[in-house]
């Protein structure tokens, strides 16, 4: 076991601000959906729009970060141990079997996480963001005072947006719950707050972890060379 700096500061900032925005957007969004009353429709709409602009900006930064740091590779799904991972959560963990995959700064996500988060990034987020943008600019005016986005039925846009929101909510519930499946109940959350996590040593190159804390570029480099091999 070694304490490893696994989540960089931007990553943590991105994670928590995105979490806060998604929570706030869900709150205001489901009020617009008339699921409950809190701020009042008018304020809910205004808040929802403001928060959506913030989320768009944040996502723009995070996409940039993912590509410049190479972190996007974390989300390449590996199917080899996917089944083992699912078995672990459904059966293994009750029999005190060991975790089938080993977490490291180089490989933060287990195969199940990778594929679900990829789904988040490629399906859920685009679903709400694109439908949200269409919703936001529905019947707005262009420079020539012409009304744009006139011919798409609002119902389609709304249905996709709502479905995306429901999917996100289900994701959030499971995601939050899964954070309790670390070494202790709060290990994972603490790691996401501080960046540091106690990890098992990787079997093949045990001193890799200390390297990771040194610099980002190096990690990516080692990854690349590995893949080239």
């Amino acid at each position, binding site marked *: 076991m070694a304490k490893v700096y696994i989540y960089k500061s931007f990553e943590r900032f991105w994670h928590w601000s995105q979490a806060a925005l998604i929570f706030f957007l869900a709150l205001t969004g489901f009020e617009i959906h008339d699921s409950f009353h809190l701020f009042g*429709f008018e304020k809910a*709409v205004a808040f929802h729009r*403001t928060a959506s602009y913030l989320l768009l900006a944040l996502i723009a930064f995070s996409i940039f970060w993912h590509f410049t740091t190479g972190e996007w590779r974390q989300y390449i799904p590996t199917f080899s141990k996917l089944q083992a991972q699912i078995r672990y959560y459904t059966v293994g963990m009750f029999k005190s079997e060991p975790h089938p995959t080993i977490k490291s700064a180089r490989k933060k996500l287990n195969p199940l996480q990778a594929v679900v988060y990829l789904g988040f990034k490629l399906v859920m987020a685009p679903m709400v963001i694109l439908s949200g943008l269409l919703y936001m600019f*529905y*019947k707005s*005016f262009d420079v020539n005072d012409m009304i744009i986005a006139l011919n798409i039925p609002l119902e389609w846009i*709304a249905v996709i947006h709502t*479905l995306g929101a*429901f999917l996100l909510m289900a994701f959030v*519930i499971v995601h939050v719950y899964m954070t309790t499946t670390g070494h202790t109940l709060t290990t994972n959350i603490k790691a996401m707050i501080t960046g540091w996590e106690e990890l098992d040593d990787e079997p093949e190159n045990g001193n890799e972890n200390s390297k990771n804390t040194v610099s980002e570029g190096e990690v990516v480099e080692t990854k690349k060379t590995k893949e080239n091999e």
Partner: protein
Amino acid sequence: MNRVIVYVIVVTIIVLVSVNLLHKTEPLNLSQYKLKQEYATKDKPSVDHTQFEILNQDFKTPQDVTVACLECHNKRHEEVIHSSHWNWERVAYVEGKGISKIGKKNVLNNFCIGANTNEQSCAKCHIGFGMTSNSFDFTNAKNVDCMVCHDNSEEYIKGAAMAGYPDRSVNLSKVAQSVGSPSKINCGSCHFYSGGGNNVKHGDLEEALLACDRNTDVHMAQNGINLSCVDCHTADKHQMKGKLYSVSSTDVNRLNCEDCHSSRPHLDDMLNRHYDKIACQTCHIPTYAKENATKMAWRWSESGKLKDGKPYHEEDSLGNHTYLSIKGEFDWQKNVEPEYKWFNGNAQHYVLGDIVDTIPVQINTLLGSADDIHSKIYPVKVHRGDQIYDPETKLLIQPKLYSPEKGDSAFWVDFNWDLAAEAGMKRMNLPYSGKHEFIETEMYWPVNHMVSPKDQSLACADCHTRDNGRLASLTDFYMPGRDRNNWIDLLGNLLFWGSLVGVSIHGLARLINSFRKNEMEAEEINTDQ
């Protein structure tokens, strides 16, 4: 230490930015301000009509006044005799009927039903003299009544049942010398009292507008910009701008709010976007008939009851007639919430002689739907009632109602529907089978006046709410906050609650599992001992 300073700076910036974002003083709506300035100055007449020698005479007949007017305004009569105020009809292209003339001459209503055969009385609201029957000469400019619109002395009044002639008490010389631009009462003398009393028909046009405050009507308020009717309803060549769809049918020469206020009058872009589908009136006229009640229903079927052989009337607590032997039973309402309809500016009418094919009979139909790009949602007064109908020929009947004396088949004096129906239909050259009954009718009156101050206009949640919103009856479009796709909601709820239940079960299983494990460990320790 540095870190603390950085955090303090970041937090300060966030606080300042959010204060700036969240705190807004309402900026001045400059376009609105400009309009108010523009209409703040009232034009004064450039001519003093008392100075004209030709008007300083003792007029024998009202036609003499018209002739005097035409001495100077020697082309105006040509404009007037081309106007709908004079002709009581307009040429229009009507879907299914082609080019036809539509107006009071051939369209019915569900108030006093129709002017035909009752001209002697109805012509009180015709801008002419001597319309006693449908053989009135609409080319004789001498019969144009200039005074009814242009009298500024409030002296002029048309006589009751005098075929459009002024009351005998009117001093014609005084009127002729005080003519000018029409004021509220000139228009109101007909448009406020149509249907036989104040605010009977429109609901949004009534005598309270002569002296009201901004809560009643922001445009005509005496403590507001105090506009008169013709400030908006301009009349180039005596063709009035603006239409009412009780008699109008096409989307031409209409008067729209945006003519003054532009299509993007709000400072809030979100509100401006509603312009595409929501008429200004919909939000800005939350209720009509704010001062005096308006008639909401008129049941002719109840008419004709007599007490001791004599007609009688009943009144409600506000003094409105709830029953009249000559007219039937009425419902009145004050502060009425409008009904809402899609409307594209075109309307169809039941024209005398049309076969009835729907019940209730649609006296007029406002055309439009959610998927028609020219349609907007408008507030509408719907007037419901029943009226006389021939079940054999399936025609609405034009009855003869008015006559100065008994024995002339007029219902209002003879109380015999058969005679009234026969006389009326005969005059219109339409068949009458000899059988009559009463059929339900509906008539649609778009509400355009009595605009409220902006703080009283509808708010988002008046429509964007799941139940009982203002637009609850318009179901042919998707409205956020009101509508949802039930399948998506079901699926979403299954996902949401399914996930919650799923993780709860999983968590519970883990909890139980860990208890068991602890027990087993404890047992092992015990056995070790």
